[in-house]
């Protein structure tokens, strides 16, 4: 069972990386300049609250003991109290996660649908004028700062044309019975369009270029030549034979892209005042709300690491020729 063993190996590596990042986070917040208690205790907390947190995180104990307590608390999902919101960090970030995930996945799905089709098309039209213009253009979209693209779209479509709202997820004063009612409302879509479009324009370059270069490789293979010799139409050759095979590495890149996108979200969410994890992280850093910073950072890191693992496993699963040596 070489596959199972390889997967177990990957899982072990995943656990190791997760532990290392958690440890780095611990050290970063305990060894930072200033009061070591500041990581969890705000001076404005009441004395009882301070003492409760002291006991909960063992802040009066030596560093190694604090570390053990910290790991134990993490395993129970205990991340401390947010200074600003006066509520548990875990609850706060869990309510923000759906907003971030919706933004990330909607933009990536648009980006991948477009990128895959356009990449296949450009490979097919290799050497044409379209290709010669499109490839540098795509490279240019990859070199845009995402937040700047967001600013330009906002200035044009929101402030000038007035087609879309300038930020947030709902207009002031409206409320919905449940998150589900909010997400399925037409209004939410209008708020989602610009940030999702911004991220999609930036992200389409990766699947597009990957798809294009994979297609170029696959088109040289014998089975494609064979399909041509059989007299199949170019459309059938490209779509049924070549594109299917070129698609595999692009699909694995989707998992990696989710991780990257979460990091990019930090700025784009700030531009569009999108109430997600990234904007919360930025605001928490500005407000020195350390428990919230740690929580948001940790959650983002966990998704990034998990997605790296998914990409690794998918790669071996979709293409068995890849050995996990």
């Amino acid at each position, binding site marked *: 069972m070489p596959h199972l063993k390889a997967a177990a190996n990957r899982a072990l590596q995943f656990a190791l990386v997760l532990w290392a990042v958690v440890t780095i986070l611990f050290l970063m917040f305990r060894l930072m*300049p200033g009061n070591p208690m500041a990581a969890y205790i705000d001076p404005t907390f009441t004395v009882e609250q301070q003492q409760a947190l002291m006991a909960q995180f063992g802040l009066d104990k030596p560093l190694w003991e604090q570390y053990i307590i910290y790991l134990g608390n993490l395993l129970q999902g205990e991340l401390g109290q947010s200074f600003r919101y006066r509520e548990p960090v875990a609850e706060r970030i869990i309510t923000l996660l759906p907003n971030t995930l919706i933004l990330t996945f909607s933009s990536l799905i648009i980006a991948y649908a477009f990128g895959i089709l356009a990449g296949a098309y450009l490979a097919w039209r290799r050497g044409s004028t379209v290709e010669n213009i499109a490839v540098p253009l795509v490279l240019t979209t990859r070199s845009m700062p995402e937040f700047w693209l967001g600013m330009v779209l906002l200035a044009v479509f929101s*402030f000038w044309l007035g087609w879309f709202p300038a930020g947030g997820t709902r207009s002031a004063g409206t409320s919905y019975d449940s998150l589900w009612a909010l997400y399925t409302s037409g209004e939410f879509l209008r708020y989602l369009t610009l940030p999702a479009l911004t991220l999609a324009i930036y992200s389409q370059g990766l699947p597009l270029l990957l798809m294009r270069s994979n297609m170029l490789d696959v088109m040289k293979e014998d089975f494609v030549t064979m399909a041509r010799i059989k007299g199949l139409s170019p459309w059938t050759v490209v779509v049924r034979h070549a594109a299917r095979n070129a698609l595999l590495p692009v699909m694995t890149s989707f998992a990696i892209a989710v991780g990257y996108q979460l990091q990019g979200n930090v700025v784009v969410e700030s531009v569009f005042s999108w109430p997600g994890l990234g904007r919360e992280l930025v605001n928490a850093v500005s407000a020195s709300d350390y428990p919230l910073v740690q929580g948001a950072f940790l959650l983002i890191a966990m998704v990034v690491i998990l997605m*790296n693992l998914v990409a690794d496993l998918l790669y071996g699963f979709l293409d068995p020729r890849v050995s996990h040596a």
Partner: protein
Amino acid sequence: MLDVASRKPNLVARLLRSLRLPLNDPFALFGLAIYVVFVLTAICANYLAPYDPTEILYTPSYDLAADLRPGQEGFVLGTTSLGRDIFSQIVYGTRSALLIGITAAFMVALIGSIVGLISGYFGGWVDALLMRLADIAFGIPFLPFVIVLAAFLKPSVWNVVIAMALVLWRDTARVIRSQVLTLRTRGYVDAARVAGSSDLKIILRHITPNILPLSFLYGSIAIGWAILTEASISFLGFGDPESISWGYMLQDAFASQALAKQAYYWFVPPGICIILVVSAGFFITRGYENILFPKLGR
């Protein structure tokens, strides 16, 4: 003396040749040209910028020169809401962009190459250890990490550079390592070993010259990353308060309602400059790929 004098240009020529600058690729040439223009702008910023970028300016009639459109009162690109000259800010922004881009890229390429060389050449537990470290670096969310570090330490250009170098070496290290893995099995490396060369000498003389183009390639990608990252950090307000950068300009514009005022002349030029510098790196990279991997034919 004579010996040194005659060897020196030779060494420079050899170094240049070993970088294998892609001068016959039109895109790469375009990219290099962009770099040259920006480098010259950065060096001559004092002469090119008509004003101090942080100076608050007044019109001849002693009004604050705020929110002037391009061309008004002789300001080429207009002024900010605080009455600062946008064109001068763009010119001086070139300095901090290149400074941060090049130092970060240099550190990334240097650390990545050294780790890759050691990991690939020695193999065994050294390799295993270094590659696990690379895995960990891949697990750190890059931008949040830089933000947190830049905010905790004093916000400065150098802290941003250090935070970037701490994470971004991973890509370069992996690629260089796999290249070294194939290089070290080559006949000339065996020959050098049999002839009694030390490990250090083999690495420096026989392997390093062959990976320099790859290091340079990853370095030029890292320049773009570094400039984009610095722009994001400054935009979020965690940048060096002392320096005028394009990211700072964008933050200033965003916070001063430039979008609602439709002041495109304020926030479009810094974005275009960032795109030009970053895409120049991509174009050079493409030229390199054609030289390094001619079979790809992309």
